């Protein structure tokens, strides 16, 4: 009898194995970085191992309990990225490193909480308007006087008491959920024209409202908060989800058109955008000012070359924002093209696993949500890395799981939890389907198979 997909503690076993591997990899990297910096073994090597192990085991045990059939590679990949990021942040700034460790713990806690609060992805759908409101509320939060703060020309930060965070990071997950649920419901309405104008059937304008609202939101963010990266991220998210949901290429075309329009407008009006584009097109002639960061980033990458200078052997401190926006350059300096390729492959695997979760889902909301979240992550990586390597202008957003930054870390762990939740749903759904099949088979043929099938079904239901 072929193995039944839902009866797989093996998935968790292989996850555990990979977590151990990740522990060895990041621990080894941490030790090498400490030695490379000439300080001997890192001072907190034992607590480091203990903390990473404890956090990863907590997440792992939570998955065993709350989503036992979820995809096994997502958590170890995130852990590897998080661990690598920590090692490089620790090399740059020890206070940032301890903050990052705290944020990792909070991220894992939120990861577990997300899994616990939402036993099924469809629970998210139920709260979509609340979530959307929260998302938009978070987006405008930095604009509120007294709590918002400008950093590097962009108004992205919120300070409430001792807490400071970038609400945009959470908003992107919230809006992802909202878009997915709206589109799951209205995909049919949005895919065919219902109003006749002359010879053409065109879309009912009110169905287009979400697209326009999203475009409006992204423009508002761009203008009010100077956050080019996030507005691009939101816009791509919505347009690609529209296309995936409806299958209408026209949406991609329309999206590209609106985006160009927005870009032209932004370049005309937003000074911040002009500077970014100037330093993108002519970084060398702006070396002393806006081009400095990108060129120092290049020098770091070039110094790293194929194999890198070795962990702890580089001088990443030269680059401004080395631990956040430009952490990729710091990593490329010390572990080279080979290390960066491995890093990119990690992201590709996460995005790929996320999309696999999307494809396997039987519910259109889950499919769209998993697609949206995976693409968010992938596009974010491209926007950051493309900015550093000058494929596109620099926009200050963080590298998921790797960059220093609490909001980014926590929101990405929540994103991961949702992907895993959907993945677990898929396994349950297919187990149910398989159970029904077996049950049907069993009732006609009778005998052991039927009892086994029934038993499994109850087990599944009990979950």
């Amino acid at each position, binding site marked *: 009898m072929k193995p039944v997909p839902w009866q797989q503690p093996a998935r968790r076993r292989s996850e555990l194995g990979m977590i151990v591997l990740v522990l060895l990899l990041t621990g080894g990297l941490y030790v*090498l970085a400490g*030695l490379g*910096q*000439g300080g*001997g*073994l890192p001072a907190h090597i034992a607590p480091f191992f203990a903390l990473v192990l404890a956090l990863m085991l907590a997440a792992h045990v939570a998955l065993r309990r709350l989503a036992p059939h979820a995809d096994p590679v997502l958590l170890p990949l995130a852990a590897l990225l998080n661990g690598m990021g920590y090692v490089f942040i620790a090399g740059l700034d020890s206070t940032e490193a301890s903050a990052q460790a705290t944020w990792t713990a909070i991220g894992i806690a939120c990861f577990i909480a997300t899994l616990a609060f939402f036993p099924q992805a469809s629970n998210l759908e139920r709260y979509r308007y609340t979530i959307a409101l929260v998302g938009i509320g978070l987006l405008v939060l930095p604009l509120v006087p007294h709590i918002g703060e400008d950093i590097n020309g962009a108004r992205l930060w919120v300070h409430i008491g001792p807490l400071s965070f970038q609400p945009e990071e959470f908003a992107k997950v919230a809006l992802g959920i909202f878009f997915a649920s709206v589109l799951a419901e209205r995909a049919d309405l949005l895919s065919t024209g219902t109003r006749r104008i002359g010879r053409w059937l065109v879309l009912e304008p009110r169905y287009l409202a979400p697209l326009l609202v999203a475009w409006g939101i992204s423009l508002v963010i761009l203008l009010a908060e100077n956050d080019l990266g996030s507005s691009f991220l939101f816009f791509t998210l919505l347009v*690609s989800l529209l*296309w*995936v*949901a409806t*299958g209408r290429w026209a949406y991609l075309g329309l999206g590209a058109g609106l985006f160009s329009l927005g870009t032209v407008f932004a370049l005309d009006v937003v000074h911040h955008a002009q500077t970014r584009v100037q330093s993108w097109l002519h970084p060398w002639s702006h*070396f002393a000012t806006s081009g400095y960061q990108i*060129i120092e980033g*290049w*020098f*770091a*990458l*070039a*110094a*790293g*070359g*194929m194999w890198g200078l070795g962990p702890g052997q580089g*001088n990443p*401190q*030269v680059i401004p924002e080395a631990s956040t926006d430009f952490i990729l350059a710091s990593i*490329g300096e010390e572990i*080279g*093209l080979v290390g*960066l*390729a491995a890093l*990119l492959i990690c*992201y*590709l695997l996460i*995005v*790929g696993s996320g*999309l696999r979760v*999307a*494809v396997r889902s*039987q519910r*259109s909301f889950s*499919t*769209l949500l998993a*697609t949206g979240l*995976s*693409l968010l992550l*992938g*596009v974010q*990586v*491209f926007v950051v*890395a*493309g900015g550093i*390597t*000058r*494929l596109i202008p620099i926009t200050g957003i963080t590298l998921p799981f790797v960059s220093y930054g609490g909001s980014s870390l926590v929101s990405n762990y929540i994103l991961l939890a949702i992907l895993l939740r959907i993945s677990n749903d898929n396994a349950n759904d297919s187990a149910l389907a398989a159970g029904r099949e077996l049950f049907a088979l069993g009732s006609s043929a009778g005998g052991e198979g039927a009892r086994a099938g029934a038993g499994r079904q109850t087990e599944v239901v009990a979950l």
Partner: protein
Amino acid sequence: MNGINRRVRLAGAAACLLILALFVQLNYLQVFHATALNDNPLNTRDVIAQFSQPRGAIISADGVTLAQSVPSKDQYKYQREYPEGPLFASVTGYFSFIYGTDGLEHEYNSALSETDASVTLPTSLEQIKNFFTTQPLPDDLHLTVLSWLQQIAANQLDGRDGAVVAIDPSTGGVLAMYSNPTYDPNLLASHNPSVEEKEWQALNTNPAKPLLAASYRERFFPGSTFKVITSAAVYDHKAALANKVVPVMTGLVLPDTAGQVLHNFAGEACGGNLLQLFTVSCDTGFAKVGLELGGNDLAAEANSFGWDKVPPIDLPGAAASYFPPAQSFFENAGALAKSAIGQESVQAVPLSLALDVAGIANGGTIMAPHLMASITGAQGQTVSSYQPHPWLKATSEATAEKLTKLMLSVVNSPNGTGVEARVPGVEVAGKTGTAQTGGPYIETWFVAFAPVPNPKIAVAVLVENQPPADEYQGGTIAAPVAKAIIQAYLQKESS
């Protein structure tokens, strides 16, 4: 659902393409374009790497650390320190992030920054541990300079502008080399660019030019110290002139000058044979000797004593003393007469004058000057040590002996100009110099070596910007400095 899944897969393919684009661009930056980026003049990573490595120490002959790298908490990992501050600035130079290196820091940069090449693959557990934990260390530079003698030189100058150079005549090893004004290399080595820039600005706008070490980078009018060379020319080229008696005069009408008269210092009258002229530093007498000697012989002698040649010292930017070419005296005998007493356009670097008297002390052979005694590796093993070798055969042993007698007379004769350089129980040979600079101040010199016979130290002392007076100030101002150096060194040597 199938349509959706197809589009999700397409979106996945698009994500792959984006990551691929990143990978291609990273290949371009990290591999294909990397050399160009690494060599870009805007790229300061090399310098930063140097600042992030430990750098070898510079250690004086008496074991005092003159420069060292200590771990620092900022972005460069190591801070260059000069524990002796301004005392050795003209020797060690500086190690600056913005302004590069100077002095020994520049000359021995590769030895100080290069790490031990003898790193082998580890074969035992202990070696593996060391392989990962011990940093390859750079070499240390050990000098011939004595910290305590340098300190005496600084104390003796007592803030006055000038220079002291002391050399071991038999090896060319520099025992002390101090210049005033000096500077604090710690400020130029600061990792705070504004501190660095401010100090650099201040040093470069200072009219006394602290960065231009008076001891080996600046030329001064040598005054009567040049009479040593003129006397050497007499012995080497026209020995008969040594015994010829020049009549006593107060002034000499210079030929080819339309009646210009050269007067003796303070209007004195003097004359006699070479020994008498030398002892009292008679200007009119030496001018006459120079005229009889001729431009060719005088220029040739100056050249064989290393004038117009940059001393091969292990420091960057050393200057050469200047003596005009022989043809410049053609139909300009007045200039020849003045040049013979160290006036006109003759200019001397304190280091060169010290080398000249060191050559006389060493039987006519000038040893190549050097500061480096040895370079040691991280385990204290000697990587290389300096082998003394001659620079120039300035003159014969016989001439050197005769010149020594002249110089002894300057210190020992009751009417000698250098009586203040006398050291009890030690025979000191010396020569004073007092040079008008054209401005309101004069420069005072004393060059000397001791003990005779078998000299162990040769000294050149310059004290600048002294108000003129009615006496041979080389003898009253510079000679006591030389005496203190010689006395201290010989006492320490014999004990």
